């Protein structure tokens, strides 16, 4: 004999699991996604539909709709209310608020169902059919494939670039500059960097091999450089095109 309270008990367990997860701070992205996402999109609404609707009022599809929709409404309204609290909208307050709503609604729904001795619990068609399952699985795989294909090709077809920058290390050290290079060229590139001021070379970095996606930086001391000699100039070259300045950055020292 089926446990007629099983669905609500699962809801209660999931809500408690979400609460526990929020406080343990477990970092696993997948676990958090599969436990927490239902807390935002489904569990509050599902529990509330069982509390305020009778099983005759909603068929399976309607229950799914109301579970999703009411969860969205509850989340939005909860957010407006949480905003009035000092804690505001953050992990602990969200988990406590949504889990509490779900737990209270589920417990009362459970009690209500026991009292009413509901003869049946609403459920979707529960015959498992092989062909639809195969088709749906194929569709999911094809869709995921389309997405990853689009993602991969977008990354590779997006314009590649190298960035160069020059800034003071911090306010307290105006004579120390940081120069940096990031390679987003989709391949390893070997760079050369020259830092000069007033025609005088302050620093040379003759070879900076950098893999795609990596960043290199270094500090340059500009003590003694004044605005009279012009800005400090960092010129970046690619070693496969050594005579052409690839990127330029400049910094005007503070006036004495």
């Amino acid at each position, binding site marked *: 004999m089926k446990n007629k309270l099983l669905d609500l008990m699962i809801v209660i367990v999931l809500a408690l699991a*979400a609460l526990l997860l929020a406080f343990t701070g477990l970092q696993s*992205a997948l676990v*958090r*996604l599969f436990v*927490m*996402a239902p807390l*935002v999109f489904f569990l509050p609404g599902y529990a509330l539909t069982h509390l305020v609707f009778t099983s005759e*009022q909603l068929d399976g*599809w*309607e229950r799914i*709709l109301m579970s*999703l*929709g009411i969860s*969205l*409404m*509850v*989340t*939005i*309204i909860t*957010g*407006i209310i949480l*905003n009035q609290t000092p804690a*505001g*909208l*953050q*992990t602990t307050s*969200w*988990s406590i608020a*949504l889990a509490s709503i779900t737990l209270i609604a589920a417990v009362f729904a459970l009690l209500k169902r026991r009292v009413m001795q509901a003869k049946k619990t609403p459920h979707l*068609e529960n015959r498992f059919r092989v062909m639809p399952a195969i088709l749906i699985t194929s*569709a999911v*795989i*094809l*869709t995921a*494939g*389309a*997405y990853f*294909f*689009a*993602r991969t*090709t*977008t*990354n590779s*077809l*997006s*314009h590649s*670039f*190298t*960035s*160069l*920058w*020059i800034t003071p290390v911090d306010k307290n050290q105006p004579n120390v500059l940081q120069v940096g290079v990031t390679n987003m060229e989709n391949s390893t590139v070997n760079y050369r960097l020259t830092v000069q001021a007033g025609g005088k070379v302050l620093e040379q970095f003759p070879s900076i091999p950098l893999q795609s996606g990596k960043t290199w930086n270094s500090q340059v001391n500009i003590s003694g450089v004044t*605005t009279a000699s012009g800005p400090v100039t960092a010129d970046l070259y690619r070693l496969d095109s050594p005579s052409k300045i*690839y*990127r*330029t*950055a*400049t*910094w*005007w020292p503070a006036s004495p």
Partner: protein
Amino acid sequence: MSAYGLLWIAAAFTASRANIPVSQAIFWVGMILLLLPAAIRVIKPNVGRSERLAILMITGVALYMVKVLYSPILFTYLDELQHWRTVQNILISHHLYGFNPILTVSAVYPGLEIVTDALISLTGLTIFQAGLIVIGVGRLVAVLALFLLFERISTSSQVAGIGTLLYMANPHFLLFDAQFAYESLALPLAVLTLYCAMRYARLRGKGKLGFGLSAFGGMAAVIVTHHITSFVLASIFLLWTFILLIKIRPILNRLVPTWIGIFGLIGIMAWITFVATQAITYLSSPLTSAINDLIGLILGTRSARHLFVQTGVNQPDFLLLRFLAISAVVLILAGLPFGALKVWQKYRNNNLALVLTAIGLIYPVTLVVRYLPWGLIISSRTAPYIFLGIGFVLAVIYPNLRIPERNEWKYRSAFTAAVMLIFLGMIASGVAAWGLPVTYQQNSYTNSADLQGEFASQWVLNTFGPYRRVAAEQDLLWEMGAYGLQRSITPDTDRIWFDNFYSTPGLGPDKLQLLKSSKIQFLSIDQRNNSPLLLPKQAGTTSTGPVQAVPASQYISALSNIDQIRGISRIYDSGDIVTYDVGALTGEK
């Protein structure tokens, strides 16, 4: 088959980004593969209810995936960047209503961002990932709610299926209402609210409470999510009330739509008064412009908008688009009177059916409004609402025809062809506005992914922290405000325009003065705007006449002397994007 169609579309978008000419043909093949099998099955009589609904949900999600494939690694539409900033503000401050310089009104309609923040806070997802999921869930709600609404009104799952399918044909469904923006979540909530209100109105005795609470809760959620949708929803309830009142003697406990409509109006007024005062300025501007255009048109001082002006890049073949779009409009206009007649014959006792018919019959008016220069924006924004009516009215035609059984397949084929033509025509008009995705072009609506802009924006944030006053043009300004969390100086928020930077050569005293008076710390320039490939396509028509594109040579020379100006440091160079620290001149540090 929908998934197979998506593969074709992914290939089409990739080919478009690689500038391969057949990309457009591949795209249309993909759309037909995605839609035609679903249309054939949904329109067919004697198909199981669950099967119809499952097909529609898969189709709705598949159409959403088209938008995801369009921008698979970053949000790229300007609206998305604007709402991104609101989410960022909430994540940092843990409170609502933080100032959003790139769309102030987004902060005061935070429904979408609240749900996104909840998901991010609890799961650790990125804004992009969470945003995709939230809009996807909204899409599911929209399709389900619409089907169930139409089914309850018509008592026919076939009518419901066709109506939902036709709703999906609205030109905003594919891209605009699939973006990470407040309307995309407000619409599903609005349809759900209508459904709950309808159930609430029809139920007697106990059990109404759930639907009543859901209807009022839905109305409240819509009010705090999107201004226009809340106005439209309240108006629908009031229109419903009007029809109710002229049909029956007012009985207080039957006036369900009245109470929800009144609640909606009071809620809207209260929200605008106490939270969202900037919505008045934000919404009145296009409306005022449209009214001025209408007056100008009548008086002969303004000319009508030219239809079918190309505005996007890499658009599909223009003649084909025009044919599809016009065919779709003609079919809808031809079908509306027949559908309205069928509604009157079969469903006139259902007040919500009459409401939807009235909404659908507004469609011809929206076409006329398109001739106004500002009318295109207003007319196109009505599509998601008008199609609630169009979908239902056209859906009742075929199932209620008396057809001899031997000819049934012919009528069904013709109707399916008509539905497909409407679908493709409306998609054509939507895609025509934006074109297929390409590698970066100015105007984010055709941008595939501006990784360089995102990187440049995040570099400023990581190096200098947030909320610095930044000037840049168009896309980069929004990216600085969103990804960079900077205080972007925008025309809408600050009433400061930097257009003359690019229309006159050099960085002279007047421009320096503008930087000083605006207290700019960083000036970012996107040199991709110089591309001659882009400039001819940027010309368009506004209410003041055609916009002249700035010639490339003039654009390049506009800031040519900036590197020579003492005190302006060129702190960042990524080839296309250059950022200058002008704080030494403006006093901003």
